[in-house]
Each structure stands twice: as structure tokens, then as C-alpha cells.
């Protein structure tokens, strides 16, 4: 028996098993037959016992039992390696610099103040939220300060240190800010988020459908198309999930790169009138398309039981099909933050077991919209 090497949680999903290893916070996807062999390994104290079990169950020829034993030993050593490399560096309390760049935003009944240390920093956070900007306000509920010292960026909330990153990893700080803002506007406990997905999520009044895919696959463009065709946008790019397993609204605008301007202009009259921003030293043109529904009047959180892997290519024959869990998980998990807390990993696995997985490959926008219409109204 090798109880020390066994996964902490096991969940059967479709044709596969998914295992969770606590020390490395790794998820392992296995076929049924591999899972049986792994169990024989974990239930054997010696190589001889393992070999006997395999032979008795007609699972393998004797010659390869040794290879299997060695491979499983090395695999389990890897998945049980402590992966907690995050060092909590002590941050001295910094003097928050004064700034003229103060902005106020309204989310429902809350006013949030953002103080930016420079215009460069402002450009990283403001354009996505510009549609929530307000001029007059009576009081401020929460103040965030974002500023740069040396080669580091800092995020403070109500004068308390929250997070820092290097300027090179500024997008990590953007992700953390998104979570902190979500926590505030939904009045949640920041330690109870189960996961944050790199996904765009659309919804109706009853359910949310998550769109995933590698960067450049067209998630944001598709979200904008769907929004123009009557869907509500729950979140673009950043989809948070709380420990009630529901997905929460993140009311940022959809960022649309120049290559997709024409597609969206055909569907949305307002798009042409939106300001064009020039991002980064390469001056890439981007427009930010705000969600159609205001935060206050829209559904704040919804259950999700459908995940779609999307990919656009002008050369595709459009298709929309159910796919294996493996196909989805290998995009979903490495691109997500999932709480390493065991009780949350268990909840996450349980949630996954109830999900239907789809793939949408398309060249025809109308085909994509119709596929989603059919899926979400069924």
C-alpha cells in the first residue's frame, strides 16, 4: 500500500477519471484502464505484488510490468512534489504617493475610487471600466491605489497593501485587481473564491455559458457578436467563481483588437463611435465595448453547466459538437487559478462532473450565433 502517494480526491467524469493531488495542486486526467492500473500500483507494497495483480487480471505482459512500475513511481513522485513556490515576501509599508489621477466609478450602489500613479498605469485599468465612470459622488465606499516604485507595481485597498508584481508581469496585477474589485462590488469574502477562469461568459436569465480557448481564438469577438444578438455578457476574459459554485459578473468592457473592428461594426452601430485606444509601445489599436446591461439591473451571478471551446478560422467548415472532457480540461485548467484549499478542490471536481463540454469551430458568424441560441434556449 502506498497511501502517501494516493491522490486526495478522485472524480469520474465522462470516459475519464480526474485525480487531485494536494501537494502539487495538480489535476491528472486518466482513462478508465489507466486508473485501474494506478490503483493496483497504489494497493501494492512491492513490485512483485504489483506484477502479480497485473498478470492475474490479464492487464499486461510480464516484460512491461517493470516499465509500468518505474513510470508510475516517477509520475507519483512528480504529482506529490510540493509545488508551493509562492514566497510571501514581506512588504514594508510604503508611503502611497499622491496623485492627480483620481477616478470614480459606480457599480450598483457602490462608489469605487481608483488612484493611478501615472498615465501609463491608468491606461492598464481605466479603459475597460470607463463606462462606469462618474463625475459626482457623495461618498466613496472603497479606494484602490495602484502605483509603481522601482520595477514593481503595487495595489493597495483602503491604504492596506494587497499585492505587488514586477512591471513586466503587470497583467498578473491586473488579474488580482479584477478579483479585488469583484469581491467589493459583490460584497463577498475575498478568501472564498473557488477559481478564476481565463474565459468569456455569456448568459440569459437562467444560466451562464463559458467560452474558452487560447488567446487569439476569438473569444472576445464572439462575445461581442453574441451580445449584439441579444445575449447578456457576464464577463469578458476574467470569469470568477465563488464557493457557491456560481459564476459572478465582472462588468468590464470587452476589448476588441483592430482585426475584428469590421466584424463588430456590422453588428453594432455604436461600435464605430467608441474611442480607439493605442496600447503599449507598439500602439496596437483597441476599442472597449461596454456590456449592454448596467450592473445594477442585471443578474449578478448564475450557475454554469456548459463550457464551449471556441476557435475561429476563415478556413473552417463551421461545426458545433460535444467533445471529450479531456479536450476542454487541457485548456481550462492550465489557464485558470483554482484555489489550492482541499475543500475547494473537491467542490471544483464535483462541479466539473456536472458540466457538458462542447467545441465550436466557425468561419460563419451567423452559424456561431445560431448554435449558441439553440444551446442556451434548449
Amino acid at each position, binding site marked *: 500500500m502506498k497511501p502517501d502517494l494516493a491522490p486526495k480526491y478522485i472524480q469520474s467524469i465522462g470516459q475519464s477519471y480526474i485525480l487531485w493531488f494536494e501537494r502539487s495542486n495538480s489535476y491528472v486526467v486518466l482513462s478508465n484502464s*489507466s486508473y485501474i492500473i494506478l490503483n493496483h500500483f497504489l494497493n501494492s507494497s512491492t513490485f512483485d505484488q504489483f506484477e502479480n495483480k497485473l498478470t492475474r487480471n490479464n492487464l499486461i505482459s510480464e516484460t*512491461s510490468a517493470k516499465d509500468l512500475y518505474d513510470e508510475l513511481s516517477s509520475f507519483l513522485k512528480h504529482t506529490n512534489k510540493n509545488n508551493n513556490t509562492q514566497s510571501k515576501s514581506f512588504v514594508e509599508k510604503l508611503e502611497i504617493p499622491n496623485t492627480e489621477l483620481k477616478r470614480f466609478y459606480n457599480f450598483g450602489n457602490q462608489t469605487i475610487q481608483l488612484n493611478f500613479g501615472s498615465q501609463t498605469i491608468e491606461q492598464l485599468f481605466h479603459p475597460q471600466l470607463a463606462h462606469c465612470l462618474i463625475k459626482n459622488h457623495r461618498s466613496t465606499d472603497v479606494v484602490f491605489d495602484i502605483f509603481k516604485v522601482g520595477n514593481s507595481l503595487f495595489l493597495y485597498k483602503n491604504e492596506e497593501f494587497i499585492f505587488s508584481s514586477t512591471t513586466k508581469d503587470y497583467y498578473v496585477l491586473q488579474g488580482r485587481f*479584477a478579483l479585488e474589485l469583484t469581491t467589493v462590488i459583490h460584497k463577498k469574502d475575498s478568501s472564498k473564491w473557488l477559481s*478564476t477562469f481565463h474565459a468569456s461568459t455569456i448568459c440569459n436569465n437562467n444560466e451562464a455559458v463559458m467560452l474558452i480557448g487560447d488567446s487569439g481564438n476569438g473569444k472576445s469577438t464572439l462575445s461581442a457578436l453574441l451580445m449584439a444578438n441579444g445575449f447578456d455578457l457576464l464577463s469578458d476574459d476574467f470569469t470568477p467563481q465563488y464557493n457557491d459554485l456560481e459564476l459572478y459578473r465582472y462588468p468590464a468592457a470587452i476589448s476588441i483588437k483592430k482585426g475584428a473592428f469590421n466584424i463588430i461594426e456590422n453588428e453594432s452601430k455604436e461600435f464605430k463611435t467608441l474611442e480607439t485606444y493605442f496600447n503599449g509601445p507598439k*500602439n496596437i489599436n483597441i476599442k472597449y465595448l461596454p456590456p449592454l446591461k448596467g450592473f445594477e439591473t442585471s443578474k449578478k451571478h448564475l450557475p454554469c453547466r456548459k463550457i464551449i471551446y471556441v476557435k475561429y478560422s476563415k478556413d473552417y467548415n463551421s461545426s458545433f459538437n460535444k467533445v471529450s472532457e479531456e479536450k476542454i480540461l487541457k485548456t481550462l485548467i*492550465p489557464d485558470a487559478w483554482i484555489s489550492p484549499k482541499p475543500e475547494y478542490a473537491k467542490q471544483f471536481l464535483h462541479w466539473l462532473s456536472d458540466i457538458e463540454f462542447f467545441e465550436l469551430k466557425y468561419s460563419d458568424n451567423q452559424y456561431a450565433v445560431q448554435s449558441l441560441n439553440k444551446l442556451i434556449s434548449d
Partner: protein
Amino acid sequence: MKRNNPQDQITREEAIKKMGKYAALTAMGTFLILNPKEAHASSPPDPGGIPFE
């Protein structure tokens, strides 16, 4: 466990390349080892480049 016919066999390196970066190929078959990110998910750096450089 079933073995492939010799004519179907490809090298281990070719097989790993075909399966993608998360797959491990073993005598047992394939399995995916997936590690979530340690930071909250958001898009990778902007195509416009790093703004502080």
C-alpha cells in the same frame, strides 16, 4: 495491455509532440497532468508590448 502494430508506431518524442504539452506518454497509456496558475487568470501580456519598457 494492447500494443500497437509495428507499422503504427511512432517515436516517443513524436508521440509527445502530437499529444500536446500536458500529456505524459507511458507504458500505461497517456495521461494529462494539469497545473492551474498561481496567479489570478487574465489575458497574457498585451500585443502592444509591455507598457513600462
